[in-house]
Structure formats: C-alpha cells, structure tokens
C-alpha cells in the first residue's frame, strides 16, 4: 500500500502552486504554455477522481447492451464494430442513452467548461 498524500492531492497541490505563485510571473508565449500545463494537471486530477466510477458504470451498460463480458476496451471495440456494421443503431433500446452518458463522463474529465457540455448538464 502506498502512503499518503494521494496522487489526486499531489497533482492538485502542484497545479495550485503553478496557478497561484508561478503564473503571475509570466506573460506572452510562456504564460500560454504554462496555462496549457496547468490545464493538463487539472485534467489528470479530474480523471484520477472520476475515472473509476465512470468506467465501472460504462462497462455495466456495455455488458447489458451487448450481452457479452470483456474488458472495457474490448467491449467498446465490439460496440464500435456493431455500429459500423449497422447491427445496432439509435433505434436500439439503450444505445443513445449509453453514448450520451459515456460522452458526458468523458467531457466531465476532458473539458468541463465546454459550452455544449455545460448546456447538457443544465438540461438534467
């Protein structure tokens, strides 16, 4: 067992340090690069926080939808193949809901400030 602090606590502390203490010292291209770096750390923090729950729910939906078991990657590969062949489509019960939920979970990690995502969150 690894000791505390957790990776989430560490990435968050580093991002906060860069944001609050270092970013004000830069302008121009270096400020831009630093902002990208902070965004990357924030993304990692969100993924470490949210991924386990999201992946488990996604795998559960995929098993239900496809009627087979497998790794999350393999289940997604099977679904992608079935959509490509037209064996499942938006009329298939559960498909639209599954794709929506999976995509919302990705955006919650990747770009929670993306306007389309914020609009869809408000819809709920």
């Amino acid at each position, binding site marked *: 067992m690894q000791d505390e602090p957790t990776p989430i606590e560490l990435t968050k502390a580093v991002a906060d340090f860069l944001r609050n203490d270092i970013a004000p010292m830069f302008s121009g291209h270096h400020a831009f*690069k630093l902002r*990208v*770096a902070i*965004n*990357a750390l924030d*993304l990692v923090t969100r993924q470490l926080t949210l991924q386990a729950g999201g992946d488990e729910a996604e795998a559960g939906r995929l098993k239900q939808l496809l009627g087979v078991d497998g790794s999350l*990657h393999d289940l*997604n*590969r099977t*679904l*992608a*193949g079935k*959509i*490509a062949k*037209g064996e499942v*489509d*938006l009329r298939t019960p559960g498909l*639209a809901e599954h*794709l*929506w939920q*999976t*995509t*919302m979970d*990705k*955006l919650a990690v*990747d*770009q929670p400030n*993306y*306007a*389309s*995502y914020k*609009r*869809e969150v408000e*819809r709920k």
Partner: protein
Amino acid sequence: MIEAELSRCVASFHPGATGVAGAAKLSGGASQETWSFDIVHPGGTIGAILRRAPQGYGASPSRAAGLGAEARLMQLAHDAGLPSPRVMHVLRPEDGLGTGFIMARIEGETIARKILRDESFAKARPLLARQLGKVAAGIHGLPRAQLPKLREMSATKEIGELEREVQSFNWPRPVFELALRWLRDNDPGPSAEVTLVHGDFRHGNLIIGPDGVRAVLDWELAHLGDPMEDLGWICVNSWRFGEIDKPVGGFGSREDLFAGYEESGRKADPARVTFWEVMGTLRWGVMCCGMMQRFRLGPDHSMERAMIGRRASETEIDLLRLLSPRGD
C-alpha cells in the same frame, strides 16, 4: 539572416526598395513557415508576409494544394474583388528562400476569442455572417478554367478518407462510428455543381477588422467539390468558441450566411450544409486524434498537441447533439 535573402529578393520585384526590416516568424511547422516583415522604401514602408516551404521541404501532405496553387488562388480572389491580399511575388529558385510567395500584409485580427468578445469588433460581429456568405459565393464563383490544378473531392470520397483515418487510430470510438454510419446513410450524392472550395473557411483563417471581413487566408486545403462544404465547415460548433447559439463562427445565424450567399445569385442548400456540418464536426474530431498520434509518434512531443488530443470528446458531444438530440 533571412533578412539578407529577403532584401535581395524584394529589390528584384519592388523597384526602389532599399531593404527589409523587422522579419519575424509568425508560425511554422516542419514543412511550412509564415514570416512578417516590412519592405523599406523611400516612398514609405510596406507590410509584407512571406509564406514558404524552406529548401529541402518540397513535398507537401497529400491534402495540401501546394504553395504555387495557394498563390494563384489568392491572386485570382484578389483580382475578382474578394477580400484577399495582393500577391507581390512568387519565389524563384534564385531567390534562395525555398518555395512560396510574398503577399501584402493586411492589418486586423484572426484570434476568435478577441473577435467574439472585444468591444472594438462589436459593430462588425452582426455583419460578419452575411459578409462571409457573400465572400463564399465569390470564391465558389471563380471561373474553373482559371484555377490551378486541384484535387477533386466529393462527400463519398471524404467519408472514405475519414473512415480510413478513424480505423488507423486503432482506438474504439463508438460515437465516431455512429457519425460515419450516419454520413454514409445520408450521403447526398455528387453535387450538381462542382466549384472551387476554400476548404478551411473559419476563424483563424479570416482577418477581421472593426469594419468586418478584410481577408481570407490559408488556401492550403483548397480543392474542387461541393460548394456547400465551406458553408457547413464554418457552422461547426468547434469554431463558435462558446457562443453556441450563433452557429456561424459564434457571431451569426445561418439565415444571414445564406442571405449573403444568395445576394450574388448563388443558391444555398441548407440540408447539404447540415450534412457538411456533421462531416466537419467529425473531421475536426479526427484531426484532434491525429494531433495525439503525432504527439506520441512524431518529433513534436508537445503538451499542446497532447491536450488537443483530449478535445476529440468535444466533437463527440457535438455529434450527439446533431444526430441524437435530447429533449428539453
């Protein structure tokens, strides 16, 4: 160092020029660079832009029209009265600058967030969609016989290319597969009219001033095809920069875009435009995945590229909003 070659080159096409000053690289990948500089002349300084492939980088990616074709298209657009910089000189081997061309520099803004938020563009914003409709109609009306050699594309060919690219990533993307399937099922077939298509008609490639559109840049992806492709591409949500209720570039409505387009006697086809908007959304998603691939495999191991890879999911939510909208 580039100033010495530029000075020699400038003297050859601009009589009386005494040199150049302030050469600065604006952007540059491995194969193409853009430089800004001033031509010094007793009659006054002239702003200029060099767009070139340095020596040894002759080959361009398969989709690129090539710098010679770009220069020819910009000159044609300029001569037709479209907002396009005047091409001052096409590079020759004796210039020692590689291949490319020099054009007049046009002052204005290309950064979307400034165009959409800054007070200085407040008066321009409501005019832009209509103006750009008119500009697109002008581009599509350039006479075929005068155009340089360009690749010819169709919806069917484009779907095939996207499909191959999605497969090449070797990473399952059910939403991309859904979009590909929708595109195949809704392929409108060959366009009744095949015209010049700009191919990258969106923020970043448009110089905007407080008075509106001043120039269309970057003809790298120009080709022959369905003119509705340009109208669909500028409606892709990725170019709205948060202003998602204004489909044209985050500043205007489709109605204004189409009205401007039809002012010059051309006809917009809203259903085809929507089809190309879906295609364009998927294309940007595929381009994001391509950035991630280049980050992992290529020499450009930059954070920016890596993070653009994580923007593919933005196009997935936009594809779902287009293809499977949820009720209110």
